[in-house]
Protein backbone atom coordinates (compact mmCIF):
# COMPACT_ATOMS: atom_id res chain seq x y z
CA UNK A 1 0.00 0.00 0.00
CA UNK A 2 2.87 2.32 0.97
CA UNK A 3 4.64 1.87 -2.38
CA UNK A 4 1.40 2.43 -4.30
CA UNK A 5 0.76 5.64 -2.31
CA UNK A 6 4.33 6.77 -3.00
CA UNK A 7 3.86 6.10 -6.73
CA UNK A 8 0.65 8.13 -6.82
CA UNK A 9 2.33 11.01 -4.94
CA UNK A 10 5.36 10.99 -7.26
CA UNK A 11 3.20 11.05 -10.37
CA UNK A 12 1.28 14.04 -9.01
CA UNK A 13 4.55 15.83 -8.20
CA UNK A 14 5.99 15.21 -11.65
CA UNK A 15 2.82 16.57 -13.22
CA UNK A 16 3.16 19.70 -11.08
CA UNK A 17 6.81 20.10 -12.11
CA UNK A 18 5.85 19.66 -15.75
CA UNK A 19 3.37 22.53 -15.47
CA UNK A 20 6.02 24.74 -13.81
CA UNK A 21 8.52 23.98 -16.55
CA UNK A 22 6.05 24.66 -19.35
CA UNK A 23 5.14 28.01 -17.77
CA UNK A 24 8.84 28.95 -17.56
CA UNK A 25 9.38 28.06 -21.23
CA UNK A 26 6.43 30.24 -22.22
CA UNK A 27 7.59 33.16 -20.08
CA UNK A 28 11.14 32.93 -21.43
CA UNK A 29 9.97 33.15 -25.05
CA UNK A 30 7.69 36.03 -24.19
CA UNK A 31 10.44 37.92 -22.34
CA UNK A 32 12.95 37.38 -25.15
CA UNK A 33 10.44 38.92 -27.55
CA UNK A 34 9.84 41.80 -25.15
CA UNK A 35 13.60 42.47 -24.87
CA UNK A 36 13.98 42.37 -28.65
CA UNK A 37 11.13 44.88 -29.06
CA UNK A 38 12.71 47.19 -26.46
CA UNK A 39 16.17 46.98 -28.04
CA UNK A 40 14.90 47.41 -31.59
CA UNK A 41 12.87 50.49 -30.65
CA UNK A 42 14.50 53.42 -32.47
CA UNK A 43 14.07 55.85 -29.53
CA UNK A 44 15.63 53.41 -27.06
CA UNK A 45 18.39 52.74 -29.56
CA UNK A 46 19.32 56.43 -29.51
CA UNK A 47 19.91 56.25 -25.74
CA UNK A 48 21.54 52.81 -25.60
CA UNK A 49 25.14 53.83 -24.95
CA UNK A 50 27.60 54.02 -22.07
CA UNK A 51 30.26 56.68 -21.63
CA UNK A 52 33.96 55.93 -21.34
CA UNK A 53 33.69 57.27 -17.79
CA UNK A 54 30.99 54.66 -17.01
CA UNK A 55 33.29 51.87 -18.14
CA UNK A 56 36.45 53.18 -16.46
CA UNK A 57 34.53 53.38 -13.18
CA UNK A 58 33.62 49.68 -13.47
CA UNK A 59 37.18 48.43 -14.04
CA UNK A 60 39.35 50.51 -11.75
CA UNK A 61 42.66 51.37 -13.34
CA UNK A 62 42.82 48.54 -15.87
CA UNK A 63 43.61 48.86 -19.54
CA UNK A 64 40.34 48.40 -21.41
CA UNK A 65 39.57 47.38 -24.98
CA UNK A 66 35.98 48.01 -26.07
CA UNK A 67 34.98 45.87 -29.04
CA UNK A 68 31.99 46.43 -31.29
CA UNK A 69 31.40 43.84 -33.95
CA UNK A 70 28.60 42.63 -36.23
CA UNK A 71 26.33 39.83 -34.95
CA UNK A 72 27.89 36.45 -35.54
CA UNK A 73 31.45 37.69 -35.16
CA UNK A 74 33.49 34.91 -33.59
CA UNK A 75 35.80 35.48 -30.62
CA UNK A 76 38.21 32.62 -30.01
CA UNK A 77 40.50 32.21 -26.97
CA UNK A 78 43.01 29.34 -27.16
CA UNK A 79 44.18 27.67 -23.97
CA UNK A 80 47.12 29.80 -22.74
CA UNK A 81 50.46 28.20 -23.56
CA UNK A 82 54.07 28.75 -22.65
CA UNK A 83 55.99 30.94 -25.09
CA UNK A 84 59.66 30.29 -26.11
CA UNK A 85 60.91 32.70 -23.45
CA UNK A 86 59.12 30.73 -20.72
CA UNK A 87 56.47 33.39 -20.47
CA UNK A 88 52.77 32.48 -20.78
CA UNK A 89 51.04 33.81 -23.88
CA UNK A 90 47.37 34.79 -23.85
CA UNK A 91 45.64 35.23 -27.16
CA UNK A 92 42.30 36.45 -28.56
CA UNK A 93 41.22 35.98 -32.18
CA UNK A 94 38.33 38.00 -33.58
CA UNK A 95 36.84 37.00 -36.93
CA UNK A 96 33.91 38.68 -38.66
CA UNK A 97 32.24 37.62 -41.91
CA UNK A 98 29.79 40.46 -42.33
CA UNK A 99 31.46 43.73 -41.49
CA UNK A 100 34.48 45.46 -39.93
CA UNK A 101 35.26 45.12 -36.23
CA UNK A 102 35.83 48.29 -34.20
CA UNK A 103 38.23 48.22 -31.26
CA UNK A 104 38.70 51.15 -28.92
CA UNK A 105 41.51 51.36 -26.35
CA UNK A 106 40.17 53.11 -23.25
CA UNK A 107 42.38 54.17 -20.40
CA UNK A 108 41.59 56.43 -17.49
CA UNK A 109 44.62 58.54 -18.31
Amino acid at each position, binding site marked *: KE*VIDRLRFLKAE*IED*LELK*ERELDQQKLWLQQSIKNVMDDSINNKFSY*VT*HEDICNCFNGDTL*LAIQAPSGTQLE*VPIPEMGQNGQKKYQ*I*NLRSHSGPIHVLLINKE
Partner: protein
Amino acid sequence: AQECQNLEIEKQRRIERIKQKRAQLQELLLQQIAFKNLVQRNRQNEQQNQGPPAMNSTIQLPFIIINTSRKTVIDCSISSDKFEYLFNFDNTFEIHDDIEVLKRMGMSFGLESGKCSLDDLKLAKSLVPKALEGYITDISTGPSWLNQGLLSNSA
Protein backbone atom coordinates in the same frame (compact mmCIF):
# COMPACT_ATOMS: atom_id res chain seq x y z
CA ALA B 1 9.35 -0.12 -5.99
CA GLN B 2 11.48 -0.03 -9.17
CA GLU B 3 8.98 2.32 -10.79
CA CYS B 4 9.15 4.53 -7.70
CA GLN B 5 12.88 4.75 -8.04
CA ASN B 6 12.62 5.69 -11.72
CA LEU B 7 10.10 8.39 -10.91
CA GLU B 8 12.34 9.77 -8.17
CA ILE B 9 15.17 10.11 -10.72
CA GLU B 10 12.80 11.71 -13.23
CA LYS B 11 11.62 14.15 -10.59
CA GLN B 12 15.16 15.22 -9.69
CA ARG B 13 15.98 15.77 -13.36
CA ARG B 14 12.95 18.00 -13.76
CA ILE B 15 13.80 19.97 -10.60
CA GLU B 16 17.33 20.63 -11.95
CA ARG B 17 15.94 21.72 -15.34
CA ILE B 18 13.47 24.10 -13.65
CA LYS B 19 16.29 25.68 -11.63
CA GLN B 20 18.30 26.25 -14.81
CA LYS B 21 15.31 27.78 -16.60
CA ARG B 22 14.62 30.05 -13.63
CA ALA B 23 18.24 31.20 -13.73
CA GLN B 24 17.91 31.93 -17.46
CA LEU B 25 14.68 33.85 -16.87
CA GLN B 26 16.41 35.84 -14.11
CA GLU B 27 19.23 36.74 -16.51
CA LEU B 28 16.74 37.96 -19.11
CA LEU B 29 14.80 39.99 -16.53
CA LEU B 30 18.01 41.65 -15.30
CA GLN B 31 18.97 42.35 -18.91
CA GLN B 32 15.66 44.08 -19.60
CA ILE B 33 15.79 46.09 -16.36
CA ALA B 34 19.41 47.17 -16.93
CA PHE B 35 18.79 48.18 -20.53
CA LYS B 36 15.64 50.19 -19.80
CA ASN B 37 17.30 51.82 -16.78
CA LEU B 38 20.28 52.85 -18.94
CA VAL B 39 17.97 54.36 -21.57
CA GLN B 40 16.11 56.32 -18.87
CA ARG B 41 19.36 57.56 -17.32
CA ASN B 42 20.79 58.71 -20.64
CA ARG B 43 17.54 60.39 -21.60
CA GLN B 44 17.48 62.31 -18.28
CA ASN B 45 21.17 63.25 -18.61
CA GLU B 46 20.61 64.58 -22.11
CA GLN B 47 17.67 66.67 -20.91
CA GLN B 48 19.75 68.08 -18.06
CA ASN B 49 22.80 68.71 -20.27
CA GLN B 50 20.70 69.99 -23.16
CA GLY B 51 22.09 67.44 -25.55
CA PRO B 52 24.00 64.16 -26.00
CA PRO B 53 27.57 63.64 -24.73
CA ALA B 54 30.47 64.18 -27.14
CA MET B 55 30.41 61.58 -29.93
CA ASN B 56 33.85 60.16 -29.13
CA SER B 57 33.08 59.71 -25.44
CA THR B 58 30.40 57.02 -25.74
CA ILE B 59 30.17 53.40 -26.84
CA GLN B 60 26.95 52.15 -28.39
CA LEU B 61 25.51 48.79 -27.25
CA PRO B 62 26.15 45.93 -28.06
CA PHE B 63 29.83 45.69 -27.19
CA ILE B 64 32.21 43.58 -25.16
CA ILE B 65 34.99 44.77 -22.90
CA ILE B 66 38.42 43.18 -22.46
CA ASN B 67 40.15 44.34 -19.30
CA THR B 68 43.71 43.63 -18.30
CA SER B 69 46.29 45.07 -15.97
CA ARG B 70 47.69 48.43 -16.94
CA LYS B 71 51.15 46.76 -17.06
CA THR B 72 50.10 44.22 -19.71
CA VAL B 73 51.80 44.50 -23.09
CA ILE B 74 49.27 43.98 -25.88
CA ASP B 75 50.38 43.11 -29.39
CA CYS B 76 47.66 43.51 -32.00
CA SER B 77 47.53 42.41 -35.67
CA ILE B 78 44.68 43.68 -37.83
CA SER B 79 43.63 42.54 -41.31
CA SER B 80 43.40 45.37 -43.85
CA ASP B 81 39.60 45.07 -44.05
CA LYS B 82 39.29 45.02 -40.22
CA PHE B 83 37.42 41.72 -40.41
CA GLU B 84 40.07 39.94 -38.38
CA TYR B 85 42.07 40.86 -35.26
CA LEU B 86 44.70 38.88 -33.38
CA PHE B 87 45.63 40.06 -29.88
CA ASN B 88 48.59 38.70 -27.92
CA PHE B 89 48.79 39.59 -24.21
CA ASP B 90 51.73 38.88 -21.92
CA ASN B 91 49.36 38.79 -18.95
CA THR B 92 45.91 37.50 -18.08
CA PHE B 93 42.79 39.36 -19.18
CA GLU B 94 39.04 39.14 -18.65
CA ILE B 95 36.20 39.52 -21.13
CA HIS B 96 32.76 40.93 -20.20
CA ASP B 97 29.67 41.63 -22.25
CA ASP B 98 27.67 44.86 -22.10
CA ILE B 99 25.04 43.43 -19.73
CA GLU B 100 27.78 42.61 -17.21
CA VAL B 101 29.07 46.19 -17.55
CA LEU B 102 25.54 47.57 -16.98
CA LYS B 103 25.22 45.42 -13.84
CA ARG B 104 28.56 46.77 -12.57
CA MET B 105 27.23 50.26 -13.25
CA GLY B 106 24.30 49.43 -10.95
CA MET B 107 21.75 49.51 -13.76
CA SER B 108 20.05 46.35 -12.45
CA PHE B 109 19.67 47.88 -8.93
CA GLY B 110 21.88 45.17 -7.36
CA LEU B 111 19.09 42.60 -7.79
CA GLU B 112 21.59 39.93 -8.89
CA SER B 113 23.31 40.12 -5.51
CA GLY B 114 20.14 40.34 -3.44
CA LYS B 115 21.02 43.90 -2.38
CA CYS B 116 18.10 45.90 -3.71
CA SER B 117 16.37 48.64 -1.70
CA LEU B 118 12.57 48.73 -1.51
CA ASP B 119 12.44 51.89 -3.64
CA ASP B 120 14.65 50.32 -6.28
CA LEU B 121 12.56 47.15 -6.15
CA LYS B 122 9.51 49.20 -7.05
CA LEU B 123 11.44 50.87 -9.89
CA ALA B 124 12.71 47.51 -11.16
CA LYS B 125 9.19 46.09 -11.22
CA SER B 126 8.00 49.02 -13.33
CA LEU B 127 10.55 48.04 -15.99
CA VAL B 128 9.32 44.48 -16.63
CA PRO B 129 6.04 43.08 -18.00
CA LYS B 130 3.36 43.08 -15.27
CA ALA B 131 2.89 39.31 -15.39
CA LEU B 132 6.56 38.83 -14.44
CA GLU B 133 6.73 41.30 -11.57
CA GLY B 134 6.45 38.46 -9.04
CA TYR B 135 9.82 37.14 -10.19
CA ILE B 136 11.48 40.45 -9.31
CA THR B 137 10.38 40.08 -5.70
CA ASP B 138 11.67 36.50 -5.72
CA ILE B 139 15.01 37.48 -7.27
CA SER B 140 15.47 40.25 -4.70
CA THR B 141 15.45 37.64 -1.93
CA GLY B 142 18.73 36.22 -3.28
CA PRO B 143 19.77 33.03 -5.12
CA SER B 144 17.66 30.78 -2.86
CA TRP B 145 14.58 31.68 -4.94
CA LEU B 146 15.77 29.25 -7.62
CA ASN B 147 14.77 26.39 -5.30
CA GLN B 148 11.51 27.98 -4.19
CA GLY B 149 8.54 25.63 -4.23
CA LEU B 150 10.75 22.81 -5.45
CA LEU B 151 12.22 21.63 -2.16
CA SER B 152 8.74 20.65 -0.95
CA ASN B 153 8.58 18.39 -4.00
CA SER B 154 11.97 16.93 -3.30
CA ALA B 155 10.97 16.34 0.35
